[in-house]
């Protein structure tokens, strides 16, 4: 049966067909839907879980693989930084049952804080890496990755990019191959990496790369396609599709399905048959540098770009000098950046912080949008968890400003890597005021459960972290809970806490308004009583997308208003009606 499947959904189908037993991941765009789709096969078929972070996820998968069950973890590119520690050493231990690690890069940074190229990890950790170019390949390469993992006794990378992960194309769905759990034989020279053992395993790693490179020379995933040989293109993944779209049969192609290690002889042969060789790859010149190192002349980054995405029009322009005509209006079109949703509890918290005019050490999640106007309340944002640790560092350098500084961190992010920062604030004694924006869900990546929500990935009930007790346990004595929908009370409670000479955990607790069960209980949309509105725009200060202003009056869009009521107390003229 043919089905239209998202690349990520097709990877999940590949996991199912490959007889995978365990999937452990932490969400991150554009990798999230792999794990979300793997859940659908049922947990007696594939045990799926959201781990607290990528390192835990990868270690869980490693444990399952060594125990003899095929295992998998997925993450976005920056997630691999978090999991880099186990990665570099599991490359030494190798596997028992197949272990596949998916990593999704985000050229163009649709939803990421940087544009790193994960292929460097494959080279640095000396791990084989496959890169599919459509949904069918997403499924087939996933299955192949498990076979290769067992054949070469290595973890195998599956590299995706946003346009592969989040594009749909048709896939032939197949049956599951039941792969029994393999025997576990104690072998600590292979699995326990102390120096004496690791020295011997390093030899295995280097030999393995040579064997894999030999396999790559004739592997079906590396394909040549000869048309006109004036132009030759080496490409992988989505870039291959862009090249095909732009150049059709005006060029010949070497499509790489395996991007590490490279089939050097195949590349040499292809290069010798074409007049001008282009190496097309988004982000860093990983292929190009290896091609050049063989003494082969090619055109790569000097004609293209290290930044952002490639596209068919870019390739057509550079290689063929062709451009398409297009129409544009001669008017200013205001931008439409993403915004906190109507009814978002984060809006209440940032409005309170704005009134307090504090320094905000920020973190990653929906609440990062609090950095944008009109709230503009985030000063810094580096990586997950950094809000808490960086505030501690700041407070050590500027203790006099500790009373004017806070950290904000979401519930999922706090569990991911904020807890260790809190431990540091308590242990190394800074007066850090850490605000957890507890909206009972991992919002940014599309509503995943996490260890604070009391639900597992499939919605089953489970234990929930008691944030208050956790703070006490690490040595933070002051813990308060506020409701961010009540902006004035939230402001006053934080102001009072800032005066205290001790670290505090402030929990701003109000579930995400997009959660179905929350939405169902919200009041009806609010309205502006036109006769009472004086056009003072006080209600517009919170930057709610449902409130607009025309003909000297505010109005509330009933299709957008969630009935949160945060705007109502802002109106001194009692013009905002509703609440039932």
């Amino acid at each position, binding site marked *: 049966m*043919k089905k239209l499947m998202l690349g990520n959904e097709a990877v999940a189908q590949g996991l199912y067909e490959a007889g995978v037993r365990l999937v452990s991941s932490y969400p991150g765009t*554009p990798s999230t839907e792999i794990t979300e789709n793997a859940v659908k096969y049922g947990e007696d078929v594939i045990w799926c879980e959201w781990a607290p972070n990528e390192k835990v996820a990868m270690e869980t998968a490693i444990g399952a693989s060594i125990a003899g069950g095929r295992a998998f973890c997925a993450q976005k590119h920056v997630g691999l930084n978090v999991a880099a520690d186990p990665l570099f050493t599991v490359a030494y231990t190798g596997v028992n049952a197949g272990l596949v690690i998916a990593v999704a890069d985000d050229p163009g940074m649709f939803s990421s804080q940087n544009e790193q190229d994960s292929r460097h990890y494959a080279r640095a950790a000396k791990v084989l890496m496959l890169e599919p170019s459509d949904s069918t390949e997403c499924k087939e390469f996933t299955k192949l990755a498990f076979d290769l993992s067992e054949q070469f006794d290595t973890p195998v990378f599956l590299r995706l990019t946003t346009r592969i992960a989040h*594009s749909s194309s048709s896939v032939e769905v197949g049956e599951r191959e039941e792969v029994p759990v393999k025997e576990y034989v104690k072998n600590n020279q292979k699995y326990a990496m102390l120096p004496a053992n690791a020295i011997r395993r390093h030899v295995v790693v280097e030999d393995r790369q040579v064997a894999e490179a030999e396999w790559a020379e004739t592997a079906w995933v590396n394909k040549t396609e000869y048309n006109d040989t004036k132009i030759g293109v080496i490409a992988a993944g989505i870039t291959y599709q862009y090249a095909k779209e732009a150049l059709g049969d005006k060029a010949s192609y070497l499509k790489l399905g395996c991007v590490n290690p490279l089939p050097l002889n195949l590349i040499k042969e292809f290069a010798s048959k074409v007049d001008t060789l282009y190496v097309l790859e988004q982000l860093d010149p990983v292929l190009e540098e290896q091609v050049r190192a063989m003494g082969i002349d090619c055109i790569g980054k000097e004609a293209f770009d290290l930044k952002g995405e490639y596209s068919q029009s870019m390739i057509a322009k550079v290689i063929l000098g062709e451009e*398409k005509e*297009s129409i*544009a209006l001669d008017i200013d079109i205001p931008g439409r950046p993403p915004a906190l949703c109507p009814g978002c509890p984060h809006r209440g918290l940032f409005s309170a912080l704005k009134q307090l005019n504090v320094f905000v050490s920020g973190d990653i999640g929906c609440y990062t949008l609090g950095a944008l106007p009109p709230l503009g309340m985030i000063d810094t944002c580096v990586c997950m968890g950094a809000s808490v640790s960086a505030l501690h560092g700041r407070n050590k350098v500027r203790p006099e400003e500790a009373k004017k500084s806070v950290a904000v961190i979401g519930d999922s992010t706090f569990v991911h890597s904020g807890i260790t920062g809190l431990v540091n604030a308590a242990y190394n004694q800074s007066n850090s005021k850490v605000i957890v924006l507890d909206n009972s869900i991992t919002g940014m990546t599309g509503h995943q459960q996490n260890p604070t929500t009391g639900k597992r990935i499939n919605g089953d009930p489970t234990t929930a972290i008691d944030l208050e007790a956790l703070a006490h346990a690490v040595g933070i004595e002051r813990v308060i809970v506020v409701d961010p929908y009540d902006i004035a009370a939230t402001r006053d409670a934080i102001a009072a806490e800032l005066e205290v000479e001790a670290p505090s955990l402030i929990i701003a607790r109000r579930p995400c308004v997009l959660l179905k069960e929350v939405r169902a209980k919200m009041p009806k949309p609010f309205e502006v009583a036109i006769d009472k509105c004086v056009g003072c725009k006080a209600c*517009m200060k919170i930057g709610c*997308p449902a409130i607009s202003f025309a003909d000297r009056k505010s109005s509330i869009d009933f299709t957008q208003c969630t009935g949160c009521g945060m705007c109502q107390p802002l109106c001194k003229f009692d013009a905002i009606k509703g609440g039932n």
Partner: protein
Amino acid sequence: MTRSILIVGVGGQGTLLASRLLGRTLLAKDYDVKISEVHGMSQRGGSVVTYVRYGDNVASPIVEKGEADIILSFEELEAARWLPYLKKGGKIVVNTQKMDPMPVIIGAAEYPKDVLKQVEAAGVEVQAVDALRMALEAGSPKAVNVALLGVVAQNTDIEKDVWEETIRTTVPEKFIDLNLKAFGLGYNA
């Protein structure tokens, strides 16, 4: 030959369901189909786009400037924003809804006047419909997406019952009637 449709709107308006219904319908007609989506709550409230391409053999899943045969816009300003993506001779189907983006809400910019008239003045064929009214008539403001899909369906040679079958097999059972009604209103608009 590959045909390209761009679906644009404001994050949260339900553009993804429209593109999926469109993709499944095209697959049912044995086309090679590729769809490229933008995901994640992080896009909510922002300008969003989905690309749909179909034909005998589709390579790239994305649509670029000057390539779209049809642009389906869920909002007026978004139609103007994505206009450069339209092919010469292409058509814009647009919902006559206006949603102020944040720069307008905070007074840093103005929502341009008579946007659709200006698009037409540029020589572009525009089919403007009030899909919110149709959705409300069908029973829920959320059905704007399926009403608009009905309007797009009008512009293709795919039979009405093929579209309806996709809706029946895609949306949750309790919303089938509502969506079929919204689709019908769009189809006859």
